[in-house]
Each structure stands twice: as C-alpha cells, then as structure tokens.
C-alpha cells in the first residue's frame, strides 16, 4: 500500500513492504508489512502472540534469528537498515534506535552498580560531566519508579527484584536518548502503578526530545493511553491502521472489534466476550482473509482471495470487505460466541 506519507517523510522509521519468512520462506511470519513512525510520533502495534509484532521490531533492530528470508525495505532517517554493515548497525542500535524487551534476561552487568551502568550510557552519548551524568542517572531511576534512587544507585543488579531490574533496563535504554524507541511489551510484567509512571516518562521524552515510539503491546488500554496511531496485526499482516481513538471507537475490522470485546468487562453480563478459536500459525494461513475462520461476519467474498489493505477513511486503512458495516457494529457481536461442550 503506497502511502504518500511514508515515502515523503525522511525523519523517522519507514517500513515498506516487509516480508519475513522461516524455513526458506515457506513459512511466512510477516507478509508485506508497511508502517511508518515519524519523529516524535507514537505508534502502537497490537496483536496476539505469534502475530509477528515482535519480529517486526527485531527486523528494525537487525536482530533477526539466523536463516530467515527478509524482503522489503526498512528506512531509518532515510538510510536503509537492512543494508547496514554490522558496525553501522551497532552504531545505530546505540543511539538511533533502541529497544526495550519484555523480558530483560540478565543483560545487566553484574559487577557494575546500576548507577554506574546508567552513568556509562549517559557519558558515551553526551558530553556532560561525570557529576552531571550521575544526577541525571538518579533522576532517571526515580522516573522509572525506584524509590531512594540516590542510595539505590550504588546497589548491584542482583540486589534488585526482576521487576526492578526491568525498570533499570528501561532507565538505561532511555539514558541513551534514542531517536526511536522500540518498546516490546515493556510494562507487561510490571505492576500498574509503576506502569503508569513509565508510560508518563515515555510521553515526556517524546514531547521534550522528539523521540519516536513504536509501542508493541496486546493491551489496548495501554496503547490507547500512549499512542497517537495504532496498527493492528493479525497472523503476520496489518489488518487495520489509523488514529488510536478513531480505530478503537469505530473499528473497521472485525478482529479489532473482537479484541475490544475481549477486554471489555461489563458487570452484570454473565460471560466475557471472546473470539472463538486461535490465530492460524505461519504456514497454515489461508490466501484469503486470514481472520475469516474466526469472524462472525464472514461472507463468501471474504474467502474468494487476498483482501487488500484499503483506505476506508482519511488516515485510516483496513483489510476487510465489510469495513463500512463493521464501523457501525457494537463489540457485543462477539458475546459468548464460544460453545462449551456440555456432557
């Protein structure tokens, strides 16, 4: 889908017609994905596990598993990421593009106090004095919700819990002042109060430093709180994209509607709404609409062939032949579509 906005903007990230396949391309994990994140913009990438959202972020960062087949283009500030040499890629990862993972593994240096670790990052990315870097590090630690940051800065990673280490990782990544941040479920493992603080910090950095944000999450409410635009992925392709509030209040794709229905908890209703079934894995995806098997609105046209991502309203695209009708529907069409076998 040639969106004029994408090719015109040079600052920021442009993903153009990206396909990623495993097993020599036979199992396609991501199909013809196009997405843009301009400087200072925040885009939410939403989908279930296996939809390809994390893989998209990894492609931008050049950390795909070996042996995958990649087609298409990824441009960052006009430079093609897929053609960078390993050295250039490392440089880009340092300050241009940074990523926060859901599970930070044990990527903190165990013999360095967390404060020093953050100070090192700050020193290598800006010309400030050591003292200045120190106070900035403490401030960042406070911002990610670490109490007594000044004294905790001299503690070592093993003295922190898993949730705390995740916050320190976030502080470290943000200390590099990236121009684009890829955040892959950064707060899923954290408590809501801490999450609220981190989301606020991300919004601040976007405003004050013009940082672009690609926010990957399965949590629509979190995305609604953080992102200007939202792209919904299903089974390796984008099925709907547009301004967050518009997409979530009047979705044009039944899958988005189903996700909304699943998150809605209305007291008094006896059951949660849910989408029956499960998404098709790579290699078992139909050439027609990939959501058809789970869709309550499926008609013959859905199964005839590939459904293009079409413009449905200004700034909005959707991959559904009944897009116009869907926007008039209520999430309750998904109410208890699931059958439980009674014995």
């Amino acid at each position, binding site marked *: 889908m040639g969106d004029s906005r994408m090719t015109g903007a040079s600052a920021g990230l442009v993903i153009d017609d990206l396909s990623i396949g495993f097993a020599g391309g036979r199992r396609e994990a991501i199909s013809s994905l196009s997405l843009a994140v301009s400087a200072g913009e925040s885009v939410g990438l939403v989908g279930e596990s296996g939809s390809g959202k994390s893989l998209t972020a990894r492609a931008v960062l050049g950390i795909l598993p070996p042996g995958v087949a990649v087609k298409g283009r990824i441009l960052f500030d006009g430079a093609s990421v897929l053609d960078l040499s390993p050295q250039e890629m490392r440089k880009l990862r340092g300050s241009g593009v940074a990523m926060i993972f859901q599970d930070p593994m044990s990527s903190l240096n165990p013999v360095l106090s967390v404060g020093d670790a953050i100070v090192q990052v700050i020193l290598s990315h800006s010309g400030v004095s050591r003292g200045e870097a120190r106070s900035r590090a403490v401030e960042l630690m406070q911002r990610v919700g670490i109490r007594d940051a000044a004294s905790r800065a001299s503690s070592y990673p093993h003295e922190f819990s898993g949730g705390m280490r995740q916050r320190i990782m976030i502080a470290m990544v943000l200390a590099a002042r990236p121009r684009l941040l890829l955040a892959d479920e950064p707060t899923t493992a954290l408590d*809501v109060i801490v999450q*609220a603080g981190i989301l606020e910090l991300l919004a601040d950095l976007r405003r004050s430093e013009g940082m672009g944000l690609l926010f990957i999450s399965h*949590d629509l409410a979190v995305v609604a709180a953080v992102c200007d635009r939202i792209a919904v992925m299903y089974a390796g392709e984008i099925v709907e994209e547009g301004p967050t509030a518009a997409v979530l209040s009047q979705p044009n794709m039944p899958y988005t509607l189903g996700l909304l229905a699943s*998150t809605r908890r209305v*007291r008094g209703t006896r059951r*949660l709404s*849910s989408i029956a079934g*499960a998404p098709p894995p790579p290699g078992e995806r139909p050439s027609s609409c990939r959501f058809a098997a789970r869709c309550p609105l499926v008609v013959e046209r859905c199964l005839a062939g590939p459904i293009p991502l079409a413009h449905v309203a200004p700034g909005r695209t959707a991959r559904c032949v009944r897009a116009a009708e869907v926007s008039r529907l209520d999430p309750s069409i998904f109410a208890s579509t*699931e059958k439980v*076998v009674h014995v």
Partner: protein
Amino acid sequence: MSSPLLSVEGISKTYQPGRSFLERRSIARPSLIDVSLALDKGDILGVVGESGSGKTTLARCIAMLEHPDTGRVMLNGEDLVTMPGSRLRARRRLIQTVFQDPYASLNPRLTVGSALAEVMLVHRLETKQGVRAKVMELLAQVGLPASAFDAYPNAFSGGQRQRICIARALAAQPDILIADEPVSSLDVSIQAQVVNLLLDLRDRLGLAVLFISHDLQLIDFIAPRIIVMLAGEVVETIPDGVPIQDAKHAYTRSLLEAIPSLDHIFRAETNPTRRETR
C-alpha cells in the same frame, strides 16, 4: 449455621532467609500476615494485589504447598495445617490449583491422556477400564478435541495448555479451585475464553473458586466478593454488591487510578446512531 466449606483463619507465613553466611540478605519479611477468609460451595472470591503482595503465598498455603507458620486452614471442619501427611495427601485432591504459567505447569514427558488418567487412578476415582472414557469426557468439558489424549503438552498453545491444566484439576474432583493468575500469560482473546470456561465450570459443578489476579477489572467482573492484598496483609474487603469503584482504601483507589482504561472510548459508543445488529 454449619461451618463453611473452607475457612482460613489467621494464617501467617515468613520465608526464612538463606542460612549461608556469605549471602547478604535483609531480615526476613513476612509474606503473609494474619489472613482470614471463608469460601462456600459455588462462591467466587477474588484476591487482588500486585507482585509481592503475598497472593501466591496465600494460594500455596491454602493448597498446603507451603506450610503456614500460624493459623488454621479448615476444610469441611478439619484443620489441614496440623493433619498428618498420609491423611493430608488424600485431602489434597479437594483443593486444586491452576497455576499462572501454562508452559511450566505440565510435565513435558507425559501425554495429556496419561496425565489426566493418573490423577483418577491414584485416587481410585475411576477403574482402569473406565478411565479412558472419563478422560475424554473431561477433555470435551474444557473444549479440547479427543485427539488431545495422545498428544504431548508441547503440541498445544498457551490457552490450550491452560485448558489441560483445568481438566487435570477437575480430574481430581475437587471442591475448591484456586486459580492463581490463570490468564495473565495468555492473549486477550484467549483470556476471555479461559475465564468463561472457569465460570461455566463453577456454574455446572458448583465449585468454590478462589480467583487470584493483579487485574482489578477482571477480578471485578468475575468475583462478587474481593479482598485486596498489600505486603502480605488484607487491606480491604469489598463485599458482594459493592462495585470496586466504591472501594475505600487509599491503596485500592491508587490501583484503580493507575489502570489505563478504555472507558472513555466505550462511552463514546453509547452514541444513539449506533445500534446492535444481529
């Protein structure tokens, strides 16, 4: 009035810090302080709290996977805490747990069928001849195909594995089901399926359910009664009929405020031009 099915009376638990003198640990902090609750047939009690609030310790103490330091866990009027091991083992099946991580909850080397059959054979709930049919029945009850019988856990997705875990718990024919964050590692659309399954089973089998979650909105939807935990203590009990928005305790209120919500978007939906079709 007769005593309730389960009554937990003032249990506390403190994990002893490592004894090794090389390990620098802070003083042992109690993870459960004087917690009491009661549960009857068909009840759903919600337990909400953040990580470190002691809700998992509570679940494990009730299931007797951890031994509480003080207090009583009364099941049908018998105290499980002081019960000798052999008798306790026979009672264990009556309180079953569905754990948070469906990927760690199933033995990777047992087929689904043999894992479920084992439960019924050990407790002599089924004969060797009848057990296969009963396993099939359980699989159907949790919405899994019969072909699951001979498959290993690695053939299943997270949501399906959680269904298997639920089936395994049901195989023990329990009175009480403890669901410890059963859906927090699942995708949203799958979460709803598993929650609905648990609600159905509660209705059909009259199970008492202790539903533990960090998700206030989910707990509020599922459980009429809710207890809120913070640092090992119950800080607030929200009785039946009181919406969680009316919670009084400052901590509960701060939790409510921190939750990102889609309410403003749903409210926009009450636009009269929208109508429900179908």
